[in-house]
């Protein structure tokens, strides 16, 4: 079934994203999904720059830049102000990177969703602190190179499971999305918009400079992430109902996903097998939760 993606562009050309940036395409789609009655909150991240420097803005919605760790808290304040002034319609959308979500912003995010603040928190996850030059975050996958997990000491901890953390807060809606599946992404944002309470959407956002990949492969790599089950697309409602929303159409070994990215080029066969095992186990666990 095809799903209509609204035509209106709320992201203007002239923004400062790198070629192939997953963060810019996902913003474009998210804004299409939500429409112009949206207020954007952007804590420190690549989008603090992509949005454009004073006196320009590349989005046609109001935008409040805010400090790194305040994605959850600033949004709560905005929402409260809107409501006290009688506006229950405008959507407040926090648009944060993985740093501001998984790490420095985790407290404010947890606080906001625990209180069930009525907003959408979207994390466009490029799996490292990219805006400051590719340092590791807790969203960096096991084995990846970053400047603080150099090839001799690659990331030795697994990626933090942010969706499980959000689901554990029993918020109305949590979902994953990525740019290769625009209809799925748009549908999820629109679904979130229609729910009152806290909504969290985790977007895998390929980053050509940080992942050391061809800019032109951004969408291909995003698709491989889903097909290889590295990044399954699913939703969780009230922390209890798990639903897989995109079923991979073919069996794709993780190797296919990893080999296009220079950040994984140092991995040994053993490493790749280890990753494959973990991906398989994670997929099974997801399947069990989703009742499949």
């Amino acid at each position, binding site marked *: 079934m095809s799903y209509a993606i609204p035509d209106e562009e709320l992201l203007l050309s002239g923004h400062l994203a790198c070629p192939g940036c997953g963060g810019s395409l996902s913003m474009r789609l998210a804004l299409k999904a939500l429409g112009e009655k949206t207020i954007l909150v952007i804590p420190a991240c690549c989008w603090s720059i992509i949005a454009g420097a004073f006196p320009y803005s590349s989005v046609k919605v109001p935008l409040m830049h805010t400090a790194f760790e305040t994605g959850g808290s600033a949004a709560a304040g905005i929402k409260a102000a809107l409501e006290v*002034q009688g506006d229950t319609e405008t959507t407040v959308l926090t648009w944060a990177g993985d740093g501001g979500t998984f790490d420095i912003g985790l407290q404010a995010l947890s606080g906001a969703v625990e*209180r069930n603040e009525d907003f959408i928190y979207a994390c466009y996850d490029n799996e490292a602190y990219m805006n400051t030059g590719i340092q590791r975050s807790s969203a960096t996958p096991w084995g990846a190179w970053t400047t603080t997990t150099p090839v001799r000491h690659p990331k030795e901890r697994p990626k933090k499971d942010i969706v499980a953390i959000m689901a554990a807060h029993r918020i109305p809606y949590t979902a994953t999305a990525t740019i290769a599946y625009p209809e799925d992404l748009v549908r999820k944002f629109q679904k979130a918009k229609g729910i009152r309470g806290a909504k969290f959407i985790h977007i895998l956002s390929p980053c050509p400079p940080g992942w050391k990949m061809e800019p032109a492969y951004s969408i291909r790599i995003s698709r491989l992430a889903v097909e290889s089950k590295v990044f399954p697309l699913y939703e969780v409602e009230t922390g209890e109902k798990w639903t897989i929303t995109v079923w991979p159409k073919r069996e794709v070994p993780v190797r296919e996903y990893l080999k296009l990215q220079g950040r994984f080029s140092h991995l040994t066969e053993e490493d790749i097998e280890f990753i494959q095992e973990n991906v398989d186990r994670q997929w099974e666990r997801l399947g069990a939760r989703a009742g499949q």
Partner: protein
Amino acid sequence: MEKVIMGNHAVSYGAKLARAQVIAAYPITPQTQIVEMLSEFWAEGLLDAKFIKVESEHSAMAACIGASSAGARAFTATSSQGLALMHEMLHWAAGARLPIVMANVNRAMGPGWSIWTEQTDSLAQRDTGWLQFYCESNQEVLDSVIQAFKIAEQVLLPTMLVLDAFVLSHTQEPVDIPDQELVDRYLPPYDARYKLDPGDPHAFGAMVAPPHYMELRYKIQKAMEEAVEVARQADGEFREIFGRSYGLVEKYRLEDAEVVLVASATITSTARVVVDELREEGYKVGLLKVRMFRPFPTKDVREALAGARKVAVIDRNISFGHGGIFAEEIKSALYNGSHRPPIFGFIIGLGGRDVTPASIRGIAEYTFEHDTPEMEIIWREVKNS
């Protein structure tokens, strides 16, 4: 209506009367009663506000910034560690030109843990671009909350009013609680000139490169300078409507004073009594209360101290590596002026150690007895010093 209430509750009444619309706060001793009473007001339908029970003070200020940016009147309260935790966002609120009002209960910084009064917490934030008012009584606290919104919304800078832990926050005093109608006349609803509004989209707080940033800082300083007269006028209008005013500074028995004690907050009350006693004994002593600390009222201070032969500044705070902060600022204010009397910088009462009439008398006597201060910091009542 007159009630006998603690300082914290005076803050609550002030925020309620000022029709604060979004309150985001985190509890910390000795501030807790402020938000508890506001919650009660709200639960009873007496306050039409949104409460955000944030999970930290940093988030409290971030939420206030969000709320104020979206056009609501935002309020919070905190103390010491909480204020310190907000530090990054205090800079942000000022840089974003948001008229947020905050009550800070002056409490000593840990470690060691201390819940008792000291001014270092708020004074350590003096560079952040917030206006600061130091209150002497619960009446002044209530009135200052209301004045703070009026001033802040005119100059577009955040404003804090400060009250001593326990000595004011938990001490009951008779307070006149003004009629809502009068407060509404004095303080109309907040009408933001710029706000987050889908009907008129703008980006706030984006990157500002060197060609533009300095002008924004210049404007903040200009707003601070304007704030001196705005605060004076706001206080004057307050007097017209409510019959009370406080000034930016207050001169007490300065006319022929040779020694002028400079004090702030509750030490001022005690000092008044001591000044009267000393006057009875023939000492030509007076008292200058500094109420507005930021912007620093240089003109008023120079004028008040114009006739002083010696100045004794009483600091219940310290900037390590330098000295008492009011003393520092007074010296700085007088330096380029035409009259530069010796300034004695006393430090007393840190960590809530009691400052008694005898303490202040001791300070006054020391000042009378010495032509010049013998040291940069004169510590009072420190054991083994």
